[in-house]
């Protein structure tokens, strides 16, 4: 037997004498993974809601949602809905399915410079634009913001995605 072969045998023997271990209980692991997943999702949603609300507040120029809890914030009616990943018509359908039939759509378009932006309030969702989850204002209506500006971008989980 060559030196290399002797070495291989000794290495194999050395490792074989080390006590092994039983694989973790998969059911337990699965539960841990699921719980971890839930926590991650919950954390993501919280971040998402915070970011979405923050961005929405930044976008609103007049009649804004500042001071009102975001509709997707934790504890709010549509917490975790991720409407920012939907197109405006999809968001409208989602809202209708959840009882929000009287929605004010605030459409931001144009540029971001002084006097370059345009704000329009409509009762029907536009075909395109980034959805910024809004809030229920004093008029009892849900105000949603649609960002159609050239420099606009999606927020939260869909940051970086093309405009729907």
């Amino acid at each position, binding site marked *: 037997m060559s030196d290399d072969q002797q070495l291989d045998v000794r290495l194999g023997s050395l490792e074989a004498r080390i006590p092994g271990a039983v*694989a973790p209980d998969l059911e337990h692991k699965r539960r841990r993974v699921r719980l971890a997943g839930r926590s991650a999702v919950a954390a993501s949603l919280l971040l998402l809601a915070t970011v979405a609300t923050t961005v929405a507040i930044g976008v609103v120029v007049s009649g804004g949602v500042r001071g009102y809890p975001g509709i997707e914030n934790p504890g709010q009616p549509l917490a975790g809905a991720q409407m920012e990943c939907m197109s405006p018509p999809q968001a409208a359908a989602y809202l209708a399915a959840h009882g929000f039939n009287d929605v004010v759509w605030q459409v931001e378009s144009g540029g971001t410079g002084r006097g370059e932006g345009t704000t329009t309030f409509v009762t029907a969702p536009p075909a395109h634009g980034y959805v910024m989850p809004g809030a229920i204002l004093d008029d009892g209506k849900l105000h949603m913001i649609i960002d159609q500006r050239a420099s606009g971008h999606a927020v939260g989980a869909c940051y970086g995605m093309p405009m729907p």
Partner: protein
Amino acid sequence: MSGDATTEQPNVVRLPAKPFADVMSPLYSGLVRRLVLVLGNREDAEDVAQDAYERAYRSWSKFDGRDPRAWLYTIALRLAFNQLERRRNWGRIISRSTPREWTDAVDPDLLSALNSLQPRVRACILLHSVDGFTLGEIADMLGEPIGTVSSRLSRARTGLKAALEMR
């Protein structure tokens, strides 16, 4: 027409046919042994093995089904090297005991010689000598060029033989 979908569509990803536990559980014990030698510490080895096992479970649907042991060892060894890197950074502050009763009685000279090698060099010789992985396979597993693996393997053999006075 042969009807062999795999041949006709080489890019199709084959999903593992068997349940995760059936394939991976039998590999776990060997993984822990390997990590004990690479990390030199049973507690760390079990931590890394569990972490690797859980990561493999999460990624099971992405596994191509070819060589589960190589796949699991790849995940584990990369985690182990990260662990060693962290330990190197914090080692002066945090150190773990290294119980060796399981090996001292077996081949203390070899263990000592093995521990004198760099962890990646240690991994190379174990993957090659004990597992029989080829240089190319080891290079893939460790994410290193074949030449580097070859050099490490040569260094490992030379170092171990010198330490063991095998010529």
